[in-house]
């Protein structure tokens, strides 16, 4: 049995991304959809850091810092939207957000 290579990390990241995608597509609660989105961000970060480790170059790590920053900004805006929606419409399920439907 050989050691842990880049492919192990990439496969783990693909699986984590898949679980996050299922969460985004299948759950009704908008807060959980945002949380599953965070899982997908994390999967992208694992990819970046693993590639920067196995093809030695720090650029991947620098970019994962930027990804974490953008994830934090996205969460702040997303949760602000959730609060605004809850205040105005009193719902938190994504299939009940139908204000734009004609």
């Amino acid at each position, binding site marked *: 049995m050989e050691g842990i290579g880049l492919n192990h990390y990439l496969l783990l990241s693909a699986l984590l991304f898949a679980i996050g995608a299922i969460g985004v597509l299948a759950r009704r609660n908008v807060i959980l959809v945002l949380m599953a989105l965070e899982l997908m961000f994390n999967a992208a970060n694992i990819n970046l850091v693993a590639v920067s480790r196995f093809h030695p170059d720090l650029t991947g790590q620098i970019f994962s810092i*930027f990804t974490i920053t953008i994830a934090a900004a996205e969460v702040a805006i997303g949760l602000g939207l959730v*609060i605004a929606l809850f205040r105005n419409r009193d719902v938190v399920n994504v299939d009940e957000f139908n204000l734009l439907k004609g």
Partner: protein
Amino acid sequence: MAEQAAFYIISAIILGGAVAMVTSRSLVRSVVWMVTSFIGVGALFILLEAEFIAAVQVLVYAGGIVVLFLFVIMLVNLGDVQHEEYLQRQWLPALLLVVVLTAEVGFLLWAGSREHGEPSPEQIDAVLRGLDGNIETVGMSLYTDYLLPFEVVSVLLLVAMIGAIYLAKKRI
């Protein structure tokens, strides 16, 4: 051998936490599972010799973002969510789609590793030995080569802060 054991244990924690998060009915439990998964990802970064990213991961995700989620869950009083339907009607097609996508990515990884192979551990060690230490090198790189993106991202954070404050006002 120890690295292999650590990798598989950490992977089990990450994936188990993620699955439990997505399938849990209670939102607060979901958040706790999300913390488990995030801390696992931080441990994985230590295994990948990226100590600075690991520290940032624990501080930002397991610290800040999780607290934000908990605040909103407490703020948005959901009442009795335990008994209502928690999956969309489209969950089966979504599951199938994601399974197919993952199989495709797995096949590409398998085919690509057969075609190209990976750099040997000796090559990697030779490059890593030339670096000072993770935090010093990341800091130097961030403040010299990537100074402009670093400043731009600070403006982005300011924009996000203003947007979040505006959205959370009483009347929009």
